[in-house]
């Protein structure tokens, strides 16, 4: 993969009336990758994204898009990017085609060029038949598709997606994921925010986990999972008073990387399950700890998230506005 930088963010801080939304953020996005900003609501993902698309001016620090500063060269940056906002930013009285025609004029396309691109995009997002109906008649999924077509109209080098599948049904989500992958195939760089772990896991080449305005960790989903160090064995004990005994016994064992008590049992991080599992069972037997349940799994993105933020992302998922 081409390792040229598409985006460079350096020590970005943004504060609104005394509240710091993001603080001292630095990261790079490589050209041609799908980069995700993952975090709960209010973590600072949107603020970061909105700074990159020139809507916000950093309090301190800088951001550049394809080498152009988002403040000093905002106009150049705007010509290079496409944006798909989080809200359905749709004028309900205009038809799908009129949305695209309006944007065509705002990107200063000639009539012929705009017409060519609009036809292509309507086909891509399968809105050809609905193109001349007012957007108020569109379903949630159709509005989202129109949003995406609007983001793609300038034929951007980088596409920014803010929570692209928030509140969509499963089928529409999968369809949107397909689009995103296809755009990547075409060489587009994609930056997206999400608070869906599976979306980040499936779609992103690399992602930054953001919480409380700071990047907690950054890497490819696989790297992040490996970085946790080992697979996870979860035990549920019949008698929970035995938990401390088992914890202290296992902690000293060389096959266990980390042992942690949970309300119902233990979470044990292990290097190689072949060595660890027999040892765990042996100890449990010897100490007379009856096991109710054993679960063994490779680390998931959930585990990564919990390890770095100390909580589950589901704790504060917003209510979804399912349409």
């Amino acid at each position, binding site marked *: 993969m081409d390792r040229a930088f598409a985006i460079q963010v350096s020590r970005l801080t943004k504060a609104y009336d005394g509240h710091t939304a993001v603080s001292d953020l630095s990261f790079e996005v490589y050209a041609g990758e799908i980069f995700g900003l993952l975090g709960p609501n209010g973590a600072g993902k949107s603020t970061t994204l909105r700074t990159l*698309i*020139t*809507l916000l*001016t950093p309090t301190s620090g800088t951001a550049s898009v394809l080498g152009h500063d988002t403040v000093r060269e*905002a*106009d150049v940056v*705007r*010509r290079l*990017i496409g*944006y798909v*906002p*989080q*809200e*359905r*930013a*749709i*004028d309900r*009285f*205009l038809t799908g085609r*009129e949305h695209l*025609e*309006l*944007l065509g*004029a*705002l*990107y*200063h396309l000639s009539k012929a060029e705009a017409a060519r691109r609009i036809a292509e995009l309507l086909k891509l997002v399968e809105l050809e038949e609905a193109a001349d109906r*007012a957007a108020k008649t569109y379903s949630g999924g159709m509005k989202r598709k129109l949003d995406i077509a*609007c983001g793609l109209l*300038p034929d951007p080098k980088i596409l920014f997606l803010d929570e692209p599948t928030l509140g969509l049904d499963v089928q529409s989500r999968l369809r949107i994921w397909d689009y995103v992958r296809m755009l990547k195939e075409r060489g587009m760089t994609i930056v997206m925010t999400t608070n869906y772990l599976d979306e980040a896991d499936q779609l992103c080449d690399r992602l930054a986990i953001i919480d409380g305005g700071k990047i907690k960790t950054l890497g490819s989903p696989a790297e992040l999972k490996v970085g946790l160090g080992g697979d996870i064995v979860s035990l549920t004990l019949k008698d929970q008073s035995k938990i401390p005994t088992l914890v202290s016994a296992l902690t000293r064992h060389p096959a266990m990387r980390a042992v942690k008590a949970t309300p119902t049992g233990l979470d044990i991080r292990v290097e190689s399950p072949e060595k660890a599992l027999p040892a765990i069972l042996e100890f449990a037997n010897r100490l007379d700890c009856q096991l109710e349940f054993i679960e063994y799994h490779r680390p998931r993105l959930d585990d990564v998230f919990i390890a770095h933020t100390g909580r589950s992302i589901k704790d504060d998922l917003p209510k979804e506005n399912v349409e």
Partner: protein
Amino acid sequence: MSEYWQEIHALTMRWVRRLSREKFSMLFTLVQPMLFWLIFFGNLFQRAADMQITQAPDYISFLTAGVVVMTVLNNGLAGGVDLLFDKENGFLERLMTTPIHRSSVILSRFIFVMTITSLQVLVIIGVAFLFGVQPATGLLGIATILMIGMLFGVGLTAISMAMAFSVKSHGDFFSVLGFLSRPMIFLSSALVPLAGMPAWMGFLARFNPMTWAIDAVRPLILTGWTEALPHVGMVVVVMVIFDALCLYGSAKVFRRAMG
């Protein structure tokens, strides 16, 4: 320059399209001032109004100038509403990520509001004509009325747009709107001449730019150029100051809101 024009044209046409899709609302906004104020109010007060005080052949011809300027006031103050909706549903943000001149959005709104207002003013003058009101200064007078309307409308629309960008919710916007527009109407010479008002109201009305606009439009309709010209000269001065203040204040808000 041609890019600038392309932007403004496309954005203005969007407002036109929106209006044409809201046929009921269009009809309502267009008809309301004529029906309510001119036809009902004008005819209702025909005999209650003292012609010694209105100095007009009948109340409806006195009222025409007031209704014209009231229409300018209401359209101007409501001029920012669509931007408020755009701000709330994220459409404005979408526009702001495109490489347009920031002023295009504002200018398109001015052009649209001024055009619609002028058309409405013409309709009002037309309906008044059906009730026997013949503008004393003819077509040139009507052109002058439109000019006064635009001068007043620019400042009002600027205030309204600035408000749309600064309010937290659209409930706030409409409360302020109501709070501004009604006193502006009653504390002006729209319904009663200054001479016929209680002294304190007349005093306050003198500071209302609307009074100046009405006092220039009224002789253009009722009497003729000789009486109208000094008022027209005066209103141009007042409105240039009014607009300068409004534009200066709102430009700051626009710059903060749109970067």
